[in-house]
């Protein structure tokens, strides 16, 4: 099951919603199943995706990036199209495959355990 885009909103520039895959615990915290589909302002960047995610699911504020600095939490990484984009600028444009909805933006927690 997939959480749908916000009702009544049209994706900016008719772009399809961006698909975000969250770690298990954040899906639980936000009471969602599956990937999240988000209408994201242009230009579609990590910052814009997180802004849209937190606006839709305010219970996630502070869990992915610091409230004040916006810095990514240390044990989380961002992946797109099989590439680690964690260290890219939060204002860098996301790959076209992500902005087209073809590929998800993955938010992944560090592996726990041995």
């Amino acid at each position, binding site marked *: 099951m997939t959480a749908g885009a916000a009702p009544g909103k049209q994706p900016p520039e008719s772009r399809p919603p961006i698909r975000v895959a969250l*770690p298990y615990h*954040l899906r639980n*915290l936000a009471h969602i199943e599956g990937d999240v589909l988000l209408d994201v302002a242009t230009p579609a960047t990590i910052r814009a995706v997180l802004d849209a995610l937190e606006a839709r699911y305010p219970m996630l*504020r502070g*869990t*992915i990036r610091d409230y004040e600095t916006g810095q990514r*939490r240390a044990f989380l990484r961002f992946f797109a199209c099989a590439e680690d984009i964690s260290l890219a600028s939060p204002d860098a444009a996301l790959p076209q495959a992500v902005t087209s909805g073809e590929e998800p933006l993955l938010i992944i927690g560090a592996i726990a355990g041995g």
Partner: protein
Amino acid sequence: MSSVRVLVGTHKGAFVLSADGKRKDWKVEGPFFAGWEIYHLKGSPADPNRLYASQTSGWFGQVMQRSDDGGKTWHQPGVPAGQAPAPGPPTALPNKFKYDVSPETGKPLTTHQWYDGTQHPWEFKRVWHLEPSLTDPDTVYAGVEDAALFRSTDGGENWNELSGLRGHGTGPRWQPGAGGLGLHTIILDPTNPKRIYIAISAAGAFRTDDGGATWKPINKGLRSPYIPDPNAEVGHCVHHVAMHPARPDVLFMQKHWDVMRSDDAGDNWHEVSGNLPTDFGFAIDVHAHEPETLYVVPIKSDSEHFPLDGKLRVYRSRKGGNEWEPLSNGLPEKDCYVNVLRDAMAVDKLDDCGVYFGTTGGQVYASSDSGDSWAPIARDLPAVLSVEVQTLQ
């Protein structure tokens, strides 16, 4: 008929254990917030259905949770699940704990001492302890790591620091214990709403008499031979402090080593370890109806965090300290190497006072006869971080 609700925070979630006044048959509900560390959860004395919980994770940080129905359902304060957020800037930021800065310079109020002796900036990590107001369900205090005291007056939706504590001048001499620089004890004086006691590892105990605006260290009489100045004003590793509400000027402390007592609101302390087999430990509490009856769980040492000789024993003093008796009926008599953490002991208020404690082995033990006999009411939980009890009418 009265009943009892035991709120258990564990390394991997929260559990609610409930029983009627006989305290024989226990119902276990949970895990709530499965997979997250629940350092502490506690109910409001003013409204027993109002509970607050601290949910933390090394991955995702601090999350605050609230229940308005006695723990059946939970939500982040001001952020109810299943409802679309109101347009505009959020009015509730329940997970945000922002340290105050100097009003004069706009810079951080102070630094603290790092393990290597250098000065280190304050960095928020988690909420260790929640203390709801005695009179207002929407007011709750939070003791956090790095050590500071925060307060919410809107049911946990927003938090503000009581920065007179960090800013009173001794901050640069505070240093983290092995578990972090945590503010773990908050005691509200039931007879004086302006008076609050707090304790920090490893800084010591502090008191305000003006509702949190100004603070002073209250560590005179503490002696810690393992720090550079054994009689220092601050720097002591206080593990926990307890008070009986009928005698708010009498405090009992489990320090790193030493069980201590103050009869003047913390201005002076003296040791009451007496005949304890070891006076290292974490938990300490006071009987609900006998202000001179104390409970501690002696732990072998600061490097061996388990009971002496593999025998789990609570020690009770009925004389306000110094003279202690072991309580072992129903507790493991051999091969027991668990720990009992600082916030993992509590008492109920029934006529036959109930005493409860949880272990790092996941057991919660209860006594319904002031400690004379014990039985496990949960055996196989994750490591227990905190135990609180609500006595319900």
